[in-house]
């Protein structure tokens, strides 16, 4: 589904942050990406989502759309989202004055339109929202509030997963969705995410901790250091990282 080859990227006027990433993600897979602070995990997620702050200086990213590989890097950010790429932000943006429900409906309809699916009316959309809110353990008071505005850290993370649940992406990139969540919230959100994983979509979870992975066992774990994937393994790699730290990976690499 996703094929990244030798991807290099930097912020405009800055040094390279991604220094040659190779990564393959197939439908039905759950990947975890771990790595020390500042190693480039969020940068990778933002480059894949099409953030304008970054400049791709080399490499390719292919994303399969209708079984055809497409050049993801040539697409605008909103086109990527319409094609099924979703990024749950590490630090979700606050949007004053735009209510969550208006925002969700605009996004849902934009994606439906792009995918040639008829959009739903306000009544049916509300029903869909109610179902997804329950999945994430949120009540509908969040719908009329401005997007993320004055949400607590944990509420923002939940709101990201609510959006994921509503928009049903084919490739979900979750950037530290687990951090900031209390134990109970973590369980609810992790179980929600898990229930959204199907054989037709894929999930890339960026995390520092094993705890989210206890609910959602990744098929493949990658360690990203200094802009490169230095090690790839199965779910035991995550445990090893948590107990032994990154120096160990660095030494072995």
């Amino acid at each position, binding site marked *: 589904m996703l094929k990244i080859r030798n991807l290099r990227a930097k912020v405009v006027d800055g040094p390279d942050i991604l220094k040659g990433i190779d990564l393959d993600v197939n439908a039905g897979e759950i990947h975890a990406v771990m790595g020390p602070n500042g190693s480039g995990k969020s940068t990778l997620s933002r480059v894949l989502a099409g953030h304008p702050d970054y400049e791709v200086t080399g490499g390719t990213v292919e994303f399969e759309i209708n079984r055809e590989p497409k050049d993801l890097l040539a697409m*605008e950010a*909103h086109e*990527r*989202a319409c094609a099924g790429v979703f990024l749950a932000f590490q630090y979700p943006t606050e*949007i004053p004055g*735009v209510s969550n429900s208006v*925002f969700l409906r605009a996004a849902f309809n934009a994606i439906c339109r792009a995918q040639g699916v008829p959009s739903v009316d306000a009544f049916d959309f509300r029903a869909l929202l109610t179902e997804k809110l329950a999945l994430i353990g949120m009540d509908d008071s969040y719908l009329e509030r*401005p997007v993320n505005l004055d949400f607590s850290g944990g509420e923002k993370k939940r709101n990201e997963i609510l*959006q994921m649940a509503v*928009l049903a992406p084919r490739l979900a990139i979750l950037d530290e969705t687990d951090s900031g969540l209390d134990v109970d919230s973590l369980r609810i959100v992790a179980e929600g995410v898990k229930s959204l994983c199907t054989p037709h979509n894929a999930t890339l979870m960026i995390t520092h901790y094993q705890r989210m992975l206890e609910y959602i066992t990744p098929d493949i774990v990658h360690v990203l250091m200094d802009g490169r994937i230095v090690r790839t393994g199965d779910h035991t790699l995550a445990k090893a990282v948590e107990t032994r730290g990154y120096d160990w990976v660095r030494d072995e690499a």
Partner: protein
Amino acid sequence: MKTARTKPVSDQYGDLFGAFIGEREGKDSVALLAQRRAAYDRFVVAGIPTRRVEAWKYTDVTALADRHLAHAVLAPIGPDDIAHAPLLHAEDETLVYVDGIMQPHLSHRHDEALLSATALSEALTESGPDLSALRADRETPFMALNHALWRDGLHLHLAANGKMERRIHVLFLHSQQSSDVIVNPRLLISLGHHAEASIAVTHASLGDAPCFNNATLDIALDEGAQLNFCHAQLLNPAATHIGATSITQQADTTLRCMDFNIGAALARHDLTVAMVGPGATTSLNGLYAVKDRQQVDCHTLIEHAAPNCSSRQLYKGILDDRATGVFNGAIRVYPGASATDGQQMNRNLLLSNTCKINAKPELQISNDDVKCTHGATVGRLDDQELFYLASRGIDTATARDMLSRGFAEEVLFQLADRQLHSDLHEILNLYFEKTV
């Protein structure tokens, strides 16, 4: 001897005034006629302020000095003609003016016992109040002109302890005239002690003809009164609006005010709130949105003249194309006004590279025991917010539109009156529809 700081007015104002005063003789009291003549003289002596006058530094109105203006030619107007006028609701206590003339057959009165409406010309008997003396020290030339030329001035009074459930709406409409006309709306509103009301004053056009709407409005809140007030300038893009609104608050009064400016080619609004009794609170929200070559100039002055008063101001502006805007917000704290709490925020959103905003907060504090804050921001749409929307599949044009509306919504959101909220929302939609 006039200074070069003002521009002398052309003789045509003399003709306008001459024709008008002739017509008023026999209708107005001798005292009122004398007041009008004196006001007209002050207008002529003052002239039109140029940009050398501090208060007019960024807004050039000198074209008014020799603009060819006429009195409106009055034609009968029926309910169908005003069916599409903004903010009209049958259940409101509605007072409709067309070209400055009161239209009883278009107005809806429900509760005349509680809310009295008296013609100012009747209220101003020989011994009555001298309107121009209300604030003689800060009369602008435009207020003097208004006083010389107002026609059906009105005094609305809500009796003490009166609680008006219905919204009161005073609508100043401009009919489609073949010449450029001058209209001088004049309104005096008073709320008796502990009275409560919701009042909207709107200025709107029925056609696309130009006009000069020169409005003067005074509001007095007696002890403990509560007022939700909305001032909406919704004139057409050929219109000029110059408005002076002065609100006086006695002890323990509550004022919630929305100052909405969308429409005219040139709109200047001076809003003064004088808190003269202790324990008064004011929350003042404003929204202006301009595009093309429109100009808007909002001046607010909050006077803390008594202890324990608080004021909150949030003014937001949206500017596009080659439009220009001014926000000048002054807070004046007088000696003795202890425990004053004054906050002011002005935020501006620039949607083009060619629009311009001059934002100027002004704090004048003569007292130690004061908590005053102010701030002004001028910015474009936020890249991170745009990316967030894009990352959810929303295209750039739609995202810009959503964020701009969201920017305005933050102010409209403050309106407790849901009907008014949706009405103003609709008017804002028109602004955006023609932009995007």
